[in-house]
């Protein structure tokens, strides 16, 4: 049950003065978690926002310090705190280098949950967040409806009309438009409830997690994922009642929505019936694997969460473990791989996608510098903080271009959108593909 946000600054101040801690009792960063940070600062150079601005407040250590200060009653949850916590990409690169094992992603999301409870955002921001997290993403039908509207805009030339008349520029949206996904003609929603048989001997029976927005913008990636699984001996069940994983809501601190979505997915997937629950989105995968963090109190839900999460596998992780058996034709091309943050830092999976890429004959994998540094996509970050996202993207495209690769491969739909925008803005002429799309392209189809 989320607390009602304070109605005014005075209310917030009064509460601040009454309790020593600036945090409420529910969904807060716990001392035991944040005090693991011994402020050694080894994370700072791996933090994209610290690298951009060089400021302590925008480093992992500084953000944790700000949480500790709020908990001690030395800092209020005001504009400054919110700005620096908002600016975090939640890429979790800091977790990969932290010698003390601080679970940064977990405490960041709890700090954001506190902001949800205790801070009143400006009107437009409140309306926008309420629409995205509470009214749109949880409802597949609304996503489909919104996508149809956007598709109409894209197909009927209104986009170029808007561009040419400079309306977008007036609204400050000219950069963001390039980040908008192209809406599919054939939504993936139509595949829900279907079962796809294994080709050859059945080696595994898996459930496929299709995502939310991905069903209207990455339908072909989803279909490719199913084809690659089938070709490698997996029966694939696309469970009918599945909903959004709740990652975006959880990242934004809207935990009640994330919890409800998680519960809906517990019922939609009977984890015992499958060898694995597969996702091709690293961002979804890391949340699906960490559902237990949403349920610390309720034991029944916690048990369901653990049971569900134990079955979740990223597609590259699953296939690399299972081993590829489908014959692949040579694809003579030079590629580079951009680590998706929530795969490499969130799920600690670095080798699996590279192993799959190397499995394709004639593909040459050239590593780019800083491949595990965020591209700036970060869920909805590129929409909320476009300037920082584009600065990070610019560095990323520079490194990608230096490899002279024809294609940039990655492991998450959000990253694909961002990198495609990067290739267009910086005119690198590089194709951007999911690792699975490369495998699908190499499949010898009968």
């Amino acid at each position, binding site marked *: 049950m989320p607390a009602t946000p304070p109605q005014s600054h005075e209310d917030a101040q009064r509460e601040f003065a009454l309790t020593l801690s600036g945090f409420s009792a529910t969904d807060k960063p716990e001392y035991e978690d944040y005090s693991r940070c011994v402020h050694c600062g080894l994370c700072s150079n791996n933090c994209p926002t610290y690298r951009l601005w060089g400021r302590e407040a925008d480093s992992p250590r500084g953000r944790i*310090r*700000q949480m500790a200060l709020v908990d001690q009653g030395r800092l209020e949850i005001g504009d400054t705190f919110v700005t620096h916590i908002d600016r975090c990409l939640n890429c979790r690169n800091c977790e990969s280098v932290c010698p003390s094992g601080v679970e940064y992603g977990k405490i960041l999301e709890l700090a954001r949950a506190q902001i949800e409870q205790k801070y009143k955002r400006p009107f437009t921001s409140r309306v926008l967040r309420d629409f995205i997290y509470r009214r749109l993403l949880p409802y597949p039908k609304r996503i489909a409806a919104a996508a149809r509207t956007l598709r109409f805009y894209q197909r009927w030339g209104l986009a170029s009309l808007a561009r040419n008349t400079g309306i977008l520029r007036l609204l400050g949206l000219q950069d963001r438009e390039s980040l908008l996904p192209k809406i599919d003609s054939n939504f993936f929603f139509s595949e829900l409830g279907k079962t796809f048989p294994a080709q050859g001997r059945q080696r595994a029976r898996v459930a496929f997690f299709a995502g939310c927005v991905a069903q209207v913008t990455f339908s072909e990636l989803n279909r490719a994922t199913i084809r690659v699984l089938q070709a490698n001996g997996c029966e694939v069940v696309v469970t009918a009642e599945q909903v959004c994983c709740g990652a975006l809501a959880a990242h934004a601190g809207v935990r009640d929505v994330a919890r409800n979505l998680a519960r809906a997915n517990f019922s939609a997937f009977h984890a015992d019936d499958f060898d694995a629950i597969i996702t091709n989105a690293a961002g979804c995968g890391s949340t699906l694997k960490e559902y237990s963090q949403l349920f610390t109190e309720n034991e029944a839900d916690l048990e369901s969460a653990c049971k569900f999460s134990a079955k979740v596998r990223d597609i590259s992780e699953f296939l690399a473990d299972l081993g590829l058996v489908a014959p692949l034709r040579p694809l003579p091309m030079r590629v580079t791989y951009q680590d998706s943050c929530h795969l490499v830092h969130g799920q600690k999976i670095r080798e699996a996608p590279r192993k799959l890429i190397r499995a394709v004959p004639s593909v040459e994998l050239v590593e780019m510098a800083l491949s595990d540094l965020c591209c700036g996509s970060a869920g909805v970050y590129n929409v909320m903080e476009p300037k920082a996202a584009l600065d990070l993207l610019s560095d990323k495209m520079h490194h990608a271009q230096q490899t002279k690769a024809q294609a940039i491969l990655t492991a998450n739909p959000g990253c694909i959108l961002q990198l495609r925008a990067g290739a267009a803005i910086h005119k690198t002429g590089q194709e951007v593909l999911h690792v699975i799309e490369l495998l699908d392209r190499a499949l010898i189809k009968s």
Partner: protein
Amino acid sequence: MDSHAINDLKKLLGADAVLHRPEELLLYEYDGSVEVARPNCVVFPRHTKEVVGIVQIANRYQIPMIGRGAGTGLSGGALARQGGVLVVFSRMNRILEIDVENQCAVVQPGVVNADLSVAVAQTGLHFAPDPSSQKASTIGGNVSENSGGPHTLAYGVTTNHVHSLEAVLPTGELVRLGSPALDSPGYDLPGLFVGSEGTLALVTEITVKLTRLPETVKTLLAIFDTVDDATETVVDITARGITPAACEMLDGWTIRAVEAYVHAGFPVDCAAVLLLEVDGLREAAEQHAEEVADVCRLHHAREVRVARDARERDLLWKGRKNAFGAVGRLSPTYYVQDGVIPRTKLPQTLRRINEIGEKYGFEIGNIFHAGDGNLHPIILFDAREEKQFQRAVASADEIIGFCIEMGGSITGEHGVGMEKDRLMPLLFTEDDMNLMRRVRDAYNPVGLLNPGKIFPDTKGCGEIHVRPLPVAGASRA
């Protein structure tokens, strides 16, 4: 602080490069140590000219100024002990020149240590000083603290890898110290400035030496049932004229903490392990590795493992490099000490540290750069209890006292800063320290640059240094 001074700084650097609101300053009151001190203002210069301007403004208003890199220091060297303007070099982070043929590079002070090695990796060169903080700490900070690391034993400390410096004196003059050539006529001023803990000048450009990567590296893990066997092995190896590239020791308590988390394959029932590395040309490295293994066995090593490939080597090092973090999982706060003893005194020192731990009722783990006799005892305590923190400091002081008794020193690599100034008289006479103060005063006559560091200053108001409680966590090596 004078609002005119802040306005002048904003005019010079732009509003984006000057922080002065209380909630912003709270984030510059700490570094990697347990010390706390808050500046009045934080500035981010982008080039040398701006640094000169900052120093002029500080002089005009008589405000202390303190240089800071990434803030990973472990003795409060980059904290504003007496307030003032903190000059943060995080935006002066460009590599200006790489000269592969002459094996040197020119960098701004905010370049991160490891970034330089990554930038030159393809040429087969690297920047040799390897403090454990190297992924984040800046070369400017390494210069100020004269940083060392596990490979110091063979490669030397930062000062051995610095050719020349460009620096702004606290009085505002821009000077160049040393020459890019291998030998520099006149006084060895870079030698004086490197390791001066930011009390002589603000360094704005550094010409560093780049070192060829060794052809072969052999990493060995030797496992011992008694600590004395392990320490005697260290003494014996060096006595035979073998200089390992690294020689690290972890005691049994630390090994159990590490293994629970890293799974580096360290046996949890042993008393100590030595992590040894030899490098060089293939034949020499292999021969030295054999000799080192023989010495270990001679001193009753239960087992000697040699890493077969890069992956096994990385795993062994992961066990060492994550040791402090692993301890952090046992206790949210701990205090890492940094002392030096002659390596021949390792056995009795370790026994004494155990006794001190028992006396104060703390668990103390031990990680050493054993080849250098550089100790890092880790004292576990709970920061939420004030008395515990004071007792932790008291036990640490007792350990340092014993180091000095053994003919050692109060710091191996973390520096004196504001953590150990009160211990300096244990090592130096008043005359010794006055000589050093006179050197400082020659460059830093008014004491505006990084005041209150290194020496227990009798000047001024005779402040009593009371340590505030750390918010969370403590320091590491």
